[in-house]
């Protein structure tokens, strides 16, 4: 008879099942692919952040003294391209979505695991092209690469950057395709649409945009690349082409792309607010369908980026009106989150701090978006720092806050370890302060008339005070972003082992082990409860096994 094992043997899970480089590079496990994405997007986040810090350093003084004008153009272009296409768009869907969508609906994996791996490789191919482009001089067109600047005039290596975005676009399409099919076809028995976590609804809406929007930017890039290489004349007014058509095609994707970045973050925040208020989300179906409404309305507002580009005043009026309409589903979400908090038993853990940050910053970003949707005000603030500040309140204050909140919330599930709560709360605070210090002054600057994309403002030295504040804030923000990376790495080795459900949260992902086994659940789950049944979870357990048995 073998002696009983005295030391507890670590359960087999997706992390310790296999070791070695190939077990990662050839994996089809959605959880491992999520971690591959996590590493890659973190890498690009710090590259993009590095460009951002250089931009802020240049603007510390009115004179253009740190970098040349041309270098500055390349800095803000590469910052934009890297952050939008290589960090924000894949961030929550490809990391948290990849990890959580099958777990939350009770599936063993995404519907097409090999396509999931393919999408990561496409991301890497696009990423390597973008890195090569950066190292060989970068691009100076702005991330919007308007024609005919990008097609006829820039001397930088624009074609490679465009192809990198083309390739990474397919990675985004394939992720969306996988999510839609998985959510339709792979739900566990009893997991009806109205029992889905709202994170899933948000990802479903995001996937729709990825699927219907990204092909349009892909074909636009094909046209731009042909135009640049073969001088076709499709966007060249000299040859009878129409540069405004480029803007229509570009924004037809790039405006909905904003919702690709923010919707998943809204999904994350919904999960966090319900858990840390210990309540069912208020107005479940309204929050669910507002995600779909945002995805639909999002496709009908693109020309509000073009109010000063010479479009007809009547179409501008319609697009202005429709842009206001997007505020409705967004407001529905904010009000429902607030109503969930009302009389909730609120816990101020780090994920919740990020969710609170999201709530405030997204509201500011959203409301200033209405300023920009109003025709009269937009003409005044177009191409100023007001737009930059608005955009970053949504993207950084909204999307990145949600991403960090989600990373903290699900870190115990992903890694099987607890992160240090004290440090995490401190980091959340630093991020919030640093963010506002960086971007709030930019609203004022923009309203006062400081144009974006200028590297030298020596003829308006009165803007310096606010620029110094903004640069100081960006340093604080940088520290706030470094901290989580450090303590997450630390916790992988030294963190306390996490229980299966450290937050006592609702949701199928918490009913399996931390970290989960390779096929997610030891036996196929059957769902018999409604989503966010926190009242039930927290109620005194009547049916529990009597103590002392």
């Amino acid at each position, binding site marked *: 008879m073998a002696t009983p094992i005295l030391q507890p043997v670590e359960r087999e899970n997706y992390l310790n099942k296999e070791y070695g480089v190939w077990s990662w590079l050839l994996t089809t496990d959605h959880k491992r692919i999520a971690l591959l994405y996590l590493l890659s997007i973190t890498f690009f986040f710090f590259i993009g952040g590095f460009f951002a810090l250089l931009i802020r350093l240049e603007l510390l003084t009115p004179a253009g003294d740190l970098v040349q004008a041309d270098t500055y153009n390349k800095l803000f272009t590469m910052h934009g391209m890297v952050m939008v296409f290589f960090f924000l768009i894949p961030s929550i869907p490809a990391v948290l979505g990849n990890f959580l969508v099958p777990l939350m609906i009770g599936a*063993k994996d995404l519907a097409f*695991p090999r396509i999931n791996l393919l999408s990561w490789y496409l991301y890497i191919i696009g990423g390597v092209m973008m890195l090569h482009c950066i190292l060989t001089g970068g691009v100076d067109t702005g991330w919007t690469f308007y024609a005919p600047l990008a097609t006829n005039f820039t001397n930088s290596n624009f074609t490679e950057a465009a192809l990198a975005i083309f390739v990474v676009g397919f990675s985004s399409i394939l992720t969306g395709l996988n999510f839609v099919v998985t959510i339709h076809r792979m739900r566990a028995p009893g997991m009806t649409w109205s029992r889905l976590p709202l994170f899933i609804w948000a990802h479903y809406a995001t996937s729709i945009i990825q699927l219907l929007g990204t092909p349009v930017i892909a074909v636009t890039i094909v046209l731009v690349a042909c135009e640049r290489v073969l001088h076709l*004349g499709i966007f060249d007014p000299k040859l009878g082409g129409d540069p405004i058509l480029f803007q229509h095609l570009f924004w037809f994707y790039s405006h909905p792309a904003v919702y690709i970045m923010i919707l998943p973050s809204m999904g994350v925040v919904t999960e966090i607010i319900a858990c840390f208020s210990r309540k069912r989300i208020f107005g479940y179906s309204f929050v669910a369908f507002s995600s779909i409404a945002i995805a639909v309305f999002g496709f009908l507002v693109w020309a509000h980026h073009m109010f000063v580009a010479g479009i007809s005043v009547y179409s501008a009026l319609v697009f202005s009106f429709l842009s206001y309409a997007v505020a409705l589903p967004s407001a529905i979400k904010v009000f429902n989150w607030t109503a969930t908090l009302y009389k909730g038993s609120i816990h101020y853990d780090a994920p919740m701090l990020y969710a609170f940050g999201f709530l405030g910053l997204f509201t500011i970003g959203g409301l200033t978006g209405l300023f920009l949707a109003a025709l009269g005000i937009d003409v005044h603030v177009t191409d100023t720092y007001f737009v930059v500040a608005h955009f970053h309140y949504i993207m950084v204050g909204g999307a990145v806050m949600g991403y960090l909140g989600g990373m903290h919330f699900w870190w115990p599930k992903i890694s099987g370890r607890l992160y240090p709560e004290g440090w995490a709360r401190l980091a959340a605070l630093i991020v919030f302060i640093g963010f506002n210090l960086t971007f709030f002054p930019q609203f004022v600057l923009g309203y006062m008339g400081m144009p974006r994309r200028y590297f030298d403002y020596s003829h308006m030295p009165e803007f310096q005070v606010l620029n110094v504040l903004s640069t100081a804030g960006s340093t604080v923000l940088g520290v706030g972003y470094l901290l989580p990376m450090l303590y997450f790495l630390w916790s992988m080795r030294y963190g306390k082992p996490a229980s299966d459900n450290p937050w006592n949260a609702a949701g199928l992902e918490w009913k399996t082990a931390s970290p989960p086994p390779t*096929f997610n659940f030891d036996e196929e789950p059957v769902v018999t409860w409604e989503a966010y049944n926190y009242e039930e979870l927290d109620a005194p357990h009547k049916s529990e096994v009597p103590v002392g048995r």
Partner: protein
Amino acid sequence: MADSSLTPVHEHHGEAHAAHNPALLHHFAEPQQQRDAASLGMWVFLATEVMFFGGLFCAYLIYRRWYFGDFGAASKSIDATLGATNTAVLICSSLTVVLAVWAAQTARKTLLIAMLGITMLLGLAFLGIKGVEYKDKFEEHHVPGASFSFENVPIPGHPGEFANPRHAQIFFSLYFVMTGLHALHMIIGLGIFTWLFVMAWKGRFTPEWNTPVEIGGLYWHFVDIVWIYLFPLLYLIDRHP
């Protein structure tokens, strides 16, 4: 594209249905779920393709409205007979694809192999005719670029007026981009069908498992339908008997 579920996996996971269905992947509960997922995946992918070509159709329609006369003149210079032949070729190939799917579902192996083969031959014929058209355009200096020439071409229905070569160049740009991307899709389709042909030859498809034929067929039909729109839009702008 949704071919992750196509390749049969030969490892069994000890599940009951896996015994008679070696193609069932581990993460699906039953073959029906796997088939539904693959089929939905292809439909969703085709939706992205609609948007991909949609951007081009949108650009095309805008310029066609702006430069209708020039587009009409340019359209007349491409060979409508070859275009019509190609349309017929593709419609026939859609029929053979449908027959192939039916043959796979009803375990008619010889018919399946024949229909897949004929479909590929029709696809190759299409590309060959397309190549002839491209060669004609090249020889007539109708390929956009430095040697492009479209001088003194009358606008149909407007005696004494001549097409603006720059606007005609936009027509030919769109013609080459749209038909070129369509041809690229045909080539990818031929790749898929080659693989289906090999699998059918090896006898892998059964009435229980023939999803690849079905969704490969969906893809082929889609590429056909794109051509059904391209043909009248590009070839028949201002032609009258």
